[in-house]
């Protein structure tokens, strides 16, 4: 089993791996759903999002946006873009 990461891996592969190892953690499921949303894989995004909501019932896009970790502009801009993915996956707005 390859345990260390490959440079060939992109976000979806790492997130899928994370969820495969531990399917019980809500946040990785939400983030996978958002990444699938951005990648245009909407059916799978919705499925993953439904699982995520059961695991982390308090998670909302509003909460996610309000609790940004820093004011760094690069980070903020990238994060706003990601919220689009969460919306496309059907995460609750809050």
């Amino acid at each position, binding site marked *: 089993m390859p*345990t*260390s*990461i490959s*440079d*060939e*891996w*992109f*976000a*979806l*592969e*790492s*997130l899928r*791996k*994370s*969820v495969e*190892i*531990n*399917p*019980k*953690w*809500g*946040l*990785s499921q939400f*983030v*996978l759903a*958002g*990444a699938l949303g*951005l*990648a245009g894989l909407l059916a799978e995004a919705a499925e993953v999002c439904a699982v995520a909501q059961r*695991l*982390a*019932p*308090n*998670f909302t896009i509003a*909460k*996610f946006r309000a*609790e*940004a*970790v*820093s004011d*760094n*502009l*690069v*980070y903020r801009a*990238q*994060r706003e873009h*990601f919220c689009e993915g969460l919306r496309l996956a059907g995460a609750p707005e809050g």
Partner: protein
Amino acid sequence: MMIPGPPPGIYAGDGAAGSDQPSFNAPDLPPTAPPGGETVVTYADFAGALRDALRDYHSADLLARNPLLHGGIGNLGSSAGPLDLKALLSETVNTLFGNPRDEKLRRVIELTYFQPAPKQEAVADRLALSFGTYRRYLTTARERLARWLWESSQLAPVRPELPAMEPMASGDKPASDPASPRLSVVVLPFLNISGDTRDDPFVDGITETLTTDLSRCSGVFAISRNTAFAYKGKPIDTRQIGRELGVRYVLEGSVQNTGERMRFNAQLVDAESGAHLWADRFDKPRADLLDMQDEVTARLARGIYIELIAAESRRAVREHPDHFDSVDHTLHGWAAWNQHLSLEAARKARDFFDAALRLDEHNVGALLGFAKAHVWEVNMYTSDDRAGQNRAAEVAVTKALALAPDSADAHLTYGMVLFAMRAPERALREFEFSVTLEASLATAHAYLGLMKVFLGRARETRAHVAEAMRLSPRDPLLFLWHFFIGVADIHLGRMVRA
């Protein structure tokens, strides 16, 4: 606490007159009452005396008056002199900081005390460190040295007997002494299976470094390597070894050189039942041996630590399910934490740590677990009381840091609390400091990488997280580290392969 005349050290050279027990290092010395004057009584006194001993390293007269010589540390007999103390200090520094990753700590002590420059500023210059960083290294090195020597003279449950001696009649006493420390383990000398004696130093190095790595894990009592090496080449009876050393667990391992690769095997055995609890087996390409040593022992230590916690929490349920003490609750908390972590598991762990703290508010492991469990909820955006949970975590970690200022895990936890408080730059510094204290602390590397995402440096994340995975490829938090890399890739727009 008063230290009795003969030192309670784990080495046999304790000065028992007429003893026919072979001693490991020190010559047999006649028992003498401690010379009048100061006797070391508390850890603070001990650490102070050690600091003085380092400062007075080149003055036999001053060393002769040092209370350490009269309190008994390490393998010093009660009539040992300044030269013995000097030898003990330099040998301990070499052993404790023998791993390449602790090179700076060793150099700092050497250049400050053993071959001193006229001024500390000059030492900092020579090591190409800023004065502040140099002072930090010095404090860390001194603290680790003090703790190591203190524990080796205080915590040892029994004096070992050499395995060559008369075997103890089985059934004399219970296999596992209830008084033996819960997470007590001896790392037996790894076997060099291929038999090429040129590999012996490397194989012995694995045993030594693994012992050091384990002794750094919170709550673990690892028998010193000197004692463990007395079992080298002897037939292994784990139950007998457990009785002789007063440990609950025995770790056996081997290294096999197959030419291009080295194969490592290790297994953890319950010394009471003889049951095999855990095993790991893996190959490494025979590249840079020193790098490999570090990687091998970090991986083994983490796996063993996780299994020790699980085994001891099972034992508590088996042996005294109705009266858990603070340590039992803490072990249960960590055992829950080491499962596949979910919101539910994190809350369950938190309840255990909470129960532990109600019984002992100074339990450092429980304080750190309590803080981690609270901020975990915050950091996964599921807290309904962000400010309250952050506050609870901050109080706990501050207290832990006051009790254990040089604990890498305490700094790691403080970093996680700062992350929850949305202070990623300060968190980053804590993670960096945590790694200077303990380079093999995989989780700290991973979080260090994550912080860079929040600082607009997501490109750097992967290398840090990869280091965590190298050090602990089967970690219970592996899922989290893959997640960190995924998050960094999202920020870099690396969504799917084109």
